[in-house]
């Protein structure tokens, strides 16, 4: 087992470096030159120089800034290694991810590591509540549909999950916003707290709750349909297994058959969805957060994208890639937990 995990970890690191390298190179194709802009800005402040002096001085400054930012080469590999902190800068010092330097956000005027945690916490909180609510609703619903396959209840649920599954999530959010905000006026449309009102203590908590409730409901609703359908499908497959017939023939109660025998089997295909869902909470829901102005990871990424906040995007990409790969690993390990056959074959 330990050997398997070690092997996977090594492989994961390889893929991680490959992906981040691709993203890094892609990103360096963008025509943004910080050294150039900074040098330009500094030369503007020197008014006494003549044009010729300015030109020579500019070249000097440009080189200085390039060396400072580590962009004094066109070799992408060197740039990437400098970014990681494995290749020295011009003056010989190392400053990269391995040294704890994730970059500086020019939009927030703060190191990116200081900006990201609050957003990540917001996304994670709303995501985890949603995930629990979604699983709490969909798993019993899916099981019930599978057990009473083709009943009226099943058909009814199937109809609605088909519609929900086919609807892009943002349309669901629009409908909810129109209904709850514009018609019923129950919830505010966007933001995290009432602007201008500096509540403290209990009032603050209630205020935040008031703002966060609708996004949570929307997010929950957006993922109900697909997970119900997957639960139902895997449960139907599980109920068709021979072991279920044997269990029934043994005279086990229907409850024991469904929840202990069938559910255990149905869980196997669901593992990746459940695990992926939990890790997905950290990544944030981009569309939802944009629509509600909810300060989470998705909104952070989108606004960084719009303002070309280079270091921020790169850092978020690293997080996204890492989470994606890590969740793959955890999924595979969970397969082993759920399915003894997988454990044996390793």
């Amino acid at each position, binding site marked *: 087992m330990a050997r398997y995990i070690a092997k996977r970890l090594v*492989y994961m690191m390889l*893929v991680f470096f*490959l*992906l981040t390298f691709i*993203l890094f190179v*892609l*990103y360096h*194709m*963008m*025509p943004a030159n910080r050294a150039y802009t900074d040098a330009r800005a500094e030369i503007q402040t020197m008014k006494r120089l003549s044009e010729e002096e300015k030109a020579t001085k500019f070249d000097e400054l440009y080189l200085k800034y390039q060396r400072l930012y580590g962009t004094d080469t066109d070799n992408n590999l060197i740039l990437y290694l400098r970014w990681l902190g494995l290749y020295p800068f011009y003056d010989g010092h190392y400053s990269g991810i391995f040294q704890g330097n994730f970059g500086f956000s020019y939009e927030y005027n703060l190191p990116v590591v200081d900006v990201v945690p609050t957003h990540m916490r917001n996304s994670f909180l709303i995501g985890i509540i949603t995930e629990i609510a979604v699983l709490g609703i969909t798993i019993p619903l899916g099981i019930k549909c599978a057990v009473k396959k083709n009943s009226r209840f099943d058909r009814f649920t199937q109809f609605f999950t*088909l*519609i929900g*599954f*086919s*609807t*892009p*999530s*943002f*349309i669901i959010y*629009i409908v909810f*916003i*129109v209904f709850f*905000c*514009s*018609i019923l006026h129950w919830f505010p*449309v*966007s933001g995290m707290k009432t602007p201008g009102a500096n509540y403290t203590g209990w009032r603050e908590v209630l205020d935040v709750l008031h703002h966060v409730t609708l996004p949570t409901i929307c997010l929950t609703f957006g993922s109900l349909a697909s997970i119900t359908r997957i639960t139902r499908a895997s449960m139907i497959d599980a109920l*068709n297994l021979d072991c279920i017939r044997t269990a029934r023939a043994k005279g086990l109660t229907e409850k024991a058959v469904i929840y202990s025998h069938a559910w255990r089997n149905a869980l196997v295909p669901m593992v990746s969805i459940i695990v992926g869902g939990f890790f997905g909470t950290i*990544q944030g829901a*981009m*569309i939802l957060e*944009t*629509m509600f102005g909810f300060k989470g990871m998705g909104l952070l*990424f*989108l606004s960084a*994208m719009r303002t*070309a906040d280079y270091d921020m*995007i790169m850092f*978020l*990409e690293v997080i*996204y*890639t890492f989470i*994606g*790969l890590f969740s*793959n690993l955890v999924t595979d390990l969970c397969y082993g937990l759920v399915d003894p056959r997988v454990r044996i074959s390793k």
Partner: protein
Amino acid sequence: MEKKRENVFRKVARWLVRGLLGTQFEEKWFYRKNKENQDEDQKDKAPDDSELIVSPGRQVFNRFLERKFAVFSVFVVLAMFAIVFIVPNFMPKYYDAFTETTQKDLPPTLDFMNVPGELNGHIKMIDSYSSFTVGLSDEGKVYVWGIGAIGATGINVKNIPEEVRNAKIAFVAAGQDHIIAIGEDGKFYGWGSNRFGQYAVDDVILANPNLEPVPDAVLNGELDVNHIKRVTAGFQATAILMDDGTLYIWGNKQAYANLDRFIGRTDIVDVDFTLNYVVGLNDKQTSVYTGTKGLYSSVRTKIGGGKGEKMSAFLDGRKITEVRAASTSVAILLDDGSIALTGDFQSDVVEVPDLEDGEQFVDIEAGTYHYTGLTNKGHVYSFGGDHYYQAEAPQVAGAAKVYAGAFQSYAVDANGKLLNKWGLKGYLFGTDDRGANIAERVIAGGRITMTVGAVAVIIEIILGVSIGLAAGFAGGWVDMLLMRIAEVFSSIPLYPFMLILNSLLSQVSMSTDERLYMIMVILGFLGWPGFAYITRAQVLVARESEYVTAAQAMGVKSSRIAFKHILPNIVSVILVNMTLSFAASMQTETSLSFLGFGVNYPQPSWGNMLSRASNATAAINFWWQWVFTSAILIMTTVCINTIGDTLRDVMDPKSSNDK
């Protein structure tokens, strides 16, 4: 008994008849001939076993036909494809970047030209400027039709004030968002939006130097109705012209920069509003007066008449009798019954007609882009801008008066009876925030969204299936390598990656079409691993099967085995995933376009057409801008997913056993 075996077409036709007309027609048309001996057959013979054996393909097809909703979905999807790919060829006037300021945010309606029945036969005058039309009857009653609601302000010009209903009205005029009326006793009325002092005066309006308030003489009802020559309204301004040349004009001076020049004039013979200028005719009647030198000074007789001549040379002693202004052009009627044009025209126009000998124009009216003229023989001609087919006048005889406004024209006979009307009827799905017809954009956008989905899936299949086949069939290190590559691709976070690529691409200057291809290719390149996994798994199963072993034993080449023996057996699985993937790609495209990182304006897509609805106020006030588009999008994806689900069900032998 030879119970006729149904062929596919017959079965589909029969199903259609049953669905559309009912079972009695189905029996009548399809079972009439063998109905008599059917009963005997059943008594006499047990069913023949050989009849029950059908090929697997036929069996799947038959079972698919049993699912009514699935068959219905197939027709819906085919119809959607047909509509979005064929109908754009019949929309010659549509283009992506069309905008029309006066037609912004209009709700769905088709009654722009529904003249009220009570008014017909008693029409005294009709006027319109934007989305609503005001009519006046001989008895002095005012009628308003079209769209009365002014944007999201809550003002509705269809709510005619009580005092106007009770009064006898002599003149009406409609502006962009207001209506004014003058009673027989000279009393002045106005309703609609008053944000720019269109009809009433208060302290805020008086304090604003950019607004010219309503003159006191008008407000106090001191005008002699019998001497009013013309009442007309423009964007946010209004003018009343007396027959002694006195002009009362007021409204928004920012919309009409030369309004100042007309205040207090007493030498005006005619007046009208273009989009940015007040145009008048002074009592010399030799030029279009704007108070701005060089504007509307060169005249031509045809729209495509080149640069035109200088006004004085052109007139050559003739006098101008009438001036009518569209948005950017002015038509003048001369005292010899001919017309001439000055100003700019759009590209989509109908040319000025050539009249017969002895036929002369006696009147001319202007809409937003078109003109309608009346001749002394009672014929009616339209020319000018034709985007809404408003310049294609029907044959009319015996017209005594024409009215034109916005995008409509009305021809009325001497008794006040409506002879004909032509122009813009309205919008089935309303208009968007740029004034474009949503129904047209839904069709054009569907073409893009469905093309993106389809091409992305085709790329996914080509890549995924060939890689999956190679991996599954070759095995060993090739399999290992390809699957690792697939894993790398499937662990790329889709949305962040798409956004980065898109913003990269936006730095590169590329045409909208090239951008569209890039989106398809990116979606395809990120989606193939799913197909590769499925294909590989199926190949691994098929490779162990006996017929492949047999083929190998016979020495068939492995590439031939892969494509001739294994591929046909996995087509069904690919088909199912293709359908589901198609719907998923469409959803991804719409979500990306909604966020502003997919298809961009002016190209329409079902995603970017919905982006306005992310604003809660717009979503409720302009509900038609997202409801129709999302309904069609959801309907299409529901149908595609239904087809995929049903295919999976009917192809799965396990699911049939427990039925």
